[in-house]
Structures are given as structure tokens and as C-alpha cells.
């Protein structure tokens, strides 16, 4: 294959940027179009809601309302851009850290938190919203996304699947197998790596020696790009290009977004053990919400009123979530037997009877 083909697959040597940390526009390569202004305004509103959702979920966890919560504070540009780059017919394959993306997809936040709340299922109907259950076994969902993309391709639909995956997740064998399958089948799937610099406590330098994770694409013949993950405009622009590349039948696309996990891995984690405050402070300066706000204000696309309205909307979103999460739910213990198979096996029927008898005995 020609050197030109190889160059066409490789990412830019530095992350794509449209807006710098001060909120000023910088020149981006011509091949990436600036997203429509209206979309940027919508993205801003979702980011504000997303950030508020995230702090609310963290608070609910402290109150014992969630079993665990992995915050994505600091990654809102990625979470929102990932979703806004998709159309309704497209599928999203999120990880446990992508609740904000699900919120931006329009899912009921209470449903989004069902699993983390301690229930046994994902809360929403995946097929109805075209969002797979949030996935914990790392990188496994990247293959499912590839399979779904291939399903859509085979059915002649024009849907695209987008798989979210973390920097740590790229080390798993499934990530490799997914990129390879997608490339060989030319499946319309976008692999979106949120490189937030850590896999729990393990920093990127111990995760990979690659020039950048985006360089993984060429080894599969997958077109790749890297982007400043705290620049909403850049992430959205590049992901839109990636999605249209896939939708156009040109195969998969890999995007690495360089971002940062501002909070600990989850509420149960103690980030002080492995990173210093100084690093966190440095990344605060790159805050994606403030950056987009400054940029949009600078371009006259956002007024003080808009900002205030977004804040108000986010607050009422949080209040509603709080109220509904504070309501206790009843779980039907016997339902644990009902969805293991389409019909319970004779063994499960017996076990259900055993539990039913126990519960009856307890009640009487």
C-alpha cells in the first residue's frame, strides 16, 4: 500500500483544536468543519445540565442513594459531543462513566442511574433509545458496537454505532479485535477513546508507550484522529466527520480525545494516593464548560441571560432527579428468576418456589 494511503490513516501530529484554553478561536485543519452555531448552543446547554447531573449524582452517592458513581466531571465536552454527533437512528455503546452522555441523549436520568442505584438491570429499553446498557467489563462493548454497526450495514440501514472506551480500555484484547473486525467488514462504527489520563490509578504513561492512542488505527487500516477533548467545538467537529465517514460506507473511524477525569475514579476511590493536586489544578484551567462559554460569548452566540437560563434549567433538572431518587423503590425479589431465560427452566422454577416460601414464612 502506498505511503499516501498510510498518511491518510494517521492522525494529525497534534490534537485538533478549534478553541484554545482561554476560549479564543484557533485555526483548525480545513478538513474539519465548524459545527453549526445552533448545535454549539445546544451543546453548551447539555454540558451545563450534564455537569449539574454529575455533581448531583455524586451527592446522591454520599447520601447512600447510589451504590457507586463514576464521575465524568471534566469530560463533558466528550460526553455531549459524542451524543450530538449522532442521529436518532444511530446506536451508542457507553461505559459506566458515560451517564452524562446518556442524559444528553435524552434518557430519563433516573433510568440512567438504575444500575448504579443497586438495581439489577440497565433501567431503560436499549432498543427504544438505541443505547446499549452501560458496560463495565472493559472494552467488551467495543465489539458489540462493531456487531451492531455490521447489523445495520447488512440491513441496508444508514445507522452508525459509536463505542465509547477509556484509555485503559484500549489495552484490552477486545479493543484490538473490534478495530480489526470493523476494518475488515467496513462496519460503520466510530471508536471514541476518552483518554482521561488515568485508568483508576494508572496514568497513561504506564498504560501505553504509543505516540498517542490515535496511532493505533493505522495498524488496522482504520482512519484516525486525535482531538483536544476539552474543546467541545473540536470534539464535535471531528466526531461529526468521523460519523459521516462511517455513514458514507467508508468504514470505521477512531478518535482519541485528550481530556481529564477531574474527580476520583469513583466515590470509593482516593485519588490522593496516586496524583497530586497540582496536576488537577492545571487541568482545571482547561475546563470544557467554561471554555465553550467564553468562546460562544466571544462570538456573540451566548448571552448572560442564556447562561443564566442554562443554569436554572440545570438546577431544576437536578432538583427533579433528587426528588425522584429519594423516593424509595420496591424491588420484587422473585423477579431475579424471570429474565435469566425467556422461560425459566424447571430448576429456576423450583428455586423460585423455595424463595417464595422463604419470603412467605418471613411475612407470616
Amino acid at each position, binding site marked *: 500500500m502506498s505511503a499516501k494511503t498510510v498518511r491518510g490513516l494517521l492522525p494529525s501530529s497534534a490534537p485538533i483544536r478549534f478553541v484554545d484554553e482561554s476560549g479564543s478561536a484557533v485555526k483548525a485543519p480545513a478538513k474539519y468543519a465548524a459545527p453549526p452555531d445552533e448545535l454549539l448552543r445546544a451543546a453548551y446547554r447539555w454540558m451545563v445540565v450534564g455537569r449539574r447531573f454529575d455533581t448531583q449524582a455524586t451527592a446522591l452517592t454520599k447520601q447512600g442513594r447510589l451504590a457507586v458513581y463514576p464521575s465524568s466531571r471534566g469530560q463533558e465536552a466528550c460526553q455531549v459531543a459524542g451524543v450530538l454527533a449522532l442521529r436518532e437512528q444511530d446506536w451508542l455503546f457507553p461505559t459506566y462513566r458515560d451517564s452524562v452522555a446518556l442524559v444528553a441523549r435524552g434518557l430519563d436520568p433516573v433510568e440512567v442511574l438504575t444500575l448504579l442505584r443497586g438495581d439489577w*438491570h440497565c433501567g431503560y429499553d436499549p432498543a427504544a433509545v438505541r443505547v446499549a446498557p452501560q458496560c463495565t467489563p472493559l472494552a*467488551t462493548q467495543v465489539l*458489540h458496537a462493531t*456487531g451492531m454497526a*455490521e*447489523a445495520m450495514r447488512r440491513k441496508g440501514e444508514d445507522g452508525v454505532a459509536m463505542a465509547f472506551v477509556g484509555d485503559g480500555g484500549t489495552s484490552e484484547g477486545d479493543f484490538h479485535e473490534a478495530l480489526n473486525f470493523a476494518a475488515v467488514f467496513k462496519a460503520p462504527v466510530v471508536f471514541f477513546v476518552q483518554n482521561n489520563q488515568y485508568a483508576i490509578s494508572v496514568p497513561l504513561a504506564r498504560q501505553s508507550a504509543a505516540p498517542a492512542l490515535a496511532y493505533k488505527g493505522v495498524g488496522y487500516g482504520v482512519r484516525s484522529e486525535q482531538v483536544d477533548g476539552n474543546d467541545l467545538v473540536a470534539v464535535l467537529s471531528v466526531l461529526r466527520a468521523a460519523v459521516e465517514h462511517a455513514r458514507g460506507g467508508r468504514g470505521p473511524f477512531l478518535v482519541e480525545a485528550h481530556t481529564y477525569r477531574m474527580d476520583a475514579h469513583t466515590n470509593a476511590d482516593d485519588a490522593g494516593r496516586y496524583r497530586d493536586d497540582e496536576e488537577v489544578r492545571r487541568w482545571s484551567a482547561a475546563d470544557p464548560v467554561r471554555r465553550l462559554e467564553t468562546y460562544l460569548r466571544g462570538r456573540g452566540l451566548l448571552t448572560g441571560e442564556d447562561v443564566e437560563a442554562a443554569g436554572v434549567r440545570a438546577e431544576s433538572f437536578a432538583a427533579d432527579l433528587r426528588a425522584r431518587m429519594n423516593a424509595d423503590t420496591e424491588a420484587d425479589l422473585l423477579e431475579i428468576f*424471570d429474565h435469566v*431465560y425467556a422461560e425459566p*427452566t424447571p430448576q429456576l422454577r423450583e428455586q423460585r418456589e423455595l424463595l417464595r416460601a422463604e419470603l412467605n414464612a418471613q411475612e407470616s
Partner: protein
Amino acid sequence: MPTVSMAQALNTALRDALRDDERVLIFGEDVGPLGGVFRITDGLTRDFGEQRCFDTPLAESGIVGLAVGLAMGGFRPVVEMQFDAFAYPAFEQIASHVAKLRNRTRGRLALPMVIRVPYGGGVGGVEHHCDSSEAYYAHTPGLKVVTPATPEDAYWLLRDAVADPDPVVFLEPKKLYWSKAEAGLERRAAAPFGRAVVRRPGRDATLVAYGPAVLVAMEAATAAAEDGLDLEVVDLRTIVPFDDETVVASVRRTGRCVVVQEAQGFAGVGAEIAARVQERCFHSLAAPVLRVAGFDVPYPPPKLEHAHLPGVDRVLDAVERLQFGDRPDVRHLSRGAA
């Protein structure tokens, strides 16, 4: 009825499934133009096209993970793992996703897919090619686990598996691929999915077996008959769901039971059968439920596998230990070997 090999029966089942349901897709390593290393998919790419039966890159987790996505997208994937031990790279996808997706979506997403696994030994295979891996799957809730012992069952159980709304691990006993028998593939006479069958009725003791061990059990029963001992042989057919009814009825009747499996014994499916039988038939039992299984060693290579594989003699030795003291009508078994 025509006589067919199990391999032919399986091929016909896949063929008929492709014909009857356009959602069925067959893929895996070498299942396309080559027709699979055992030729179970022979001619399917030629006759149904690459869109229906195709080769994938060489990665088992990838194959199963792709199947999960395709099933979520409305297809009915039937994937082949080339050999038993080569399904292990897919273990996480199988245990954490295939088995659980229905449950973790409260039944909203079904996962109708079949994972075909040629398994077991007796074919002179080198290392890693002869594992009996059924216990790994049977112990994993959410999977159905099937293994046929006759060409007719191979056909119908595979048709059932493809039509099933749940994921099925379909274990094909390699050593029976070329075994032939009369088989009705046109009109169903085979027992329903989920039911065991009595392959041979008998009064004196029950041999419970599945997959490759059924043949051994049948031969043992024939040999024992020469000694006047009337053994019943139960073929499980599906390990999950398990047909307690048929097994229990048999053992209650005969009062004695030997479980035969090819897999290493420790914590295998045979342990489950023995445990269930004594739980449910304790007062009918005249002797403990005995197990005849492979040894707890890595599957041995061609030159040594005959020592490992539970054969007729080992089964008859176990039957002999069933304490027929209370049954003067049962003569002591006298076999050439003993």
C-alpha cells in the same frame, strides 16, 4: 429413514435454518469456502452466499462479541469455535455478556445465538484439541447447554437451538461426527428440547450419560446384557435445562445409578447429576450413585487417550460396585478384561 452421519445432520440443520430464517448468519474461523475444519458448514457459502456464511478474522472473543452486537441488531448468529479449547479466549464475552444480556436489560434485549463447539476427544487430536468444556458453560446461568449423541438429535437440537430465544452453547462430540445412524430429518420424531430420553430401557441400574459418553453407556449396557444385567441408559441431550423428571423416574425405578462423562470428573456435570440424583432418589437407592469420568489430568494426547477415556470396562467396573448383594438374580459380571 436415510442413514446419515452426525456431521451431515448438522450440516443439513444449518442449511435448513439458513433457508427458513433469513436472520440466521453463520460465521467463524474457516467456516466459509473451506466449510470448517470438520466440514460442518460445507457448501453453505457456495449455496447461500457470503452474506449468510462467512469467515472472520482469527479472534474468538471478537467472533462472540460481534455476534452479540449482531443479535442485538436483529440477526440470529450461529458461530463456530474451531475447537473446545479455542473457545476460551471468548470466555469473558460468553460469561459476562452472552449469558447475562437478557437479565441485565430486564428481558428487553433477547440474545438468540448459538455457539457451536466441537468438543471432547477420541479422535487422536493433539494438545488443546480435545477438552470437554461443558461444565464451564453449564455452571454459567443464562446459557443453555446442549449436546447431541445421535445424528437425529444433532439435527433437531441444532434446529431448536437456532430457533431458541436464548443463547445456546451447542457442544458437538467430535468423535461422533462420523458416526452414522438412521435419522428422520424431515418429520420430527426427536424428543423436545429440554427433555432427556431413555435410549435403552432396563431394570437393574441406570446409566446417565450425555454427548460422547452415550455411546459408551450403550455399549456397556449391551455388554452387561450378555451377563444378564439389564441396564437402562438415559441420554440427557440438554444439560441445561436439566430434565430431572426423566432421570429421577429412571433411578427410582432401577434403584441404582452410574453417571458417565468423558470430561475430567472433579466439579463436572457428572457431579451435578450424582448430587441431584441422590438428593431426589435417596430412599430408592440401593447403592451410592457412582461416577465414571475422565481423570483429573489435562486431556492426554493420541497415544494415551485410550487410558483416559471412560470405556466400557470402566463403566462395567462401576456397575459391579453397585452392591447387588440384595439381588441374587443379578449374576456377577464376568468380562474378558476383568
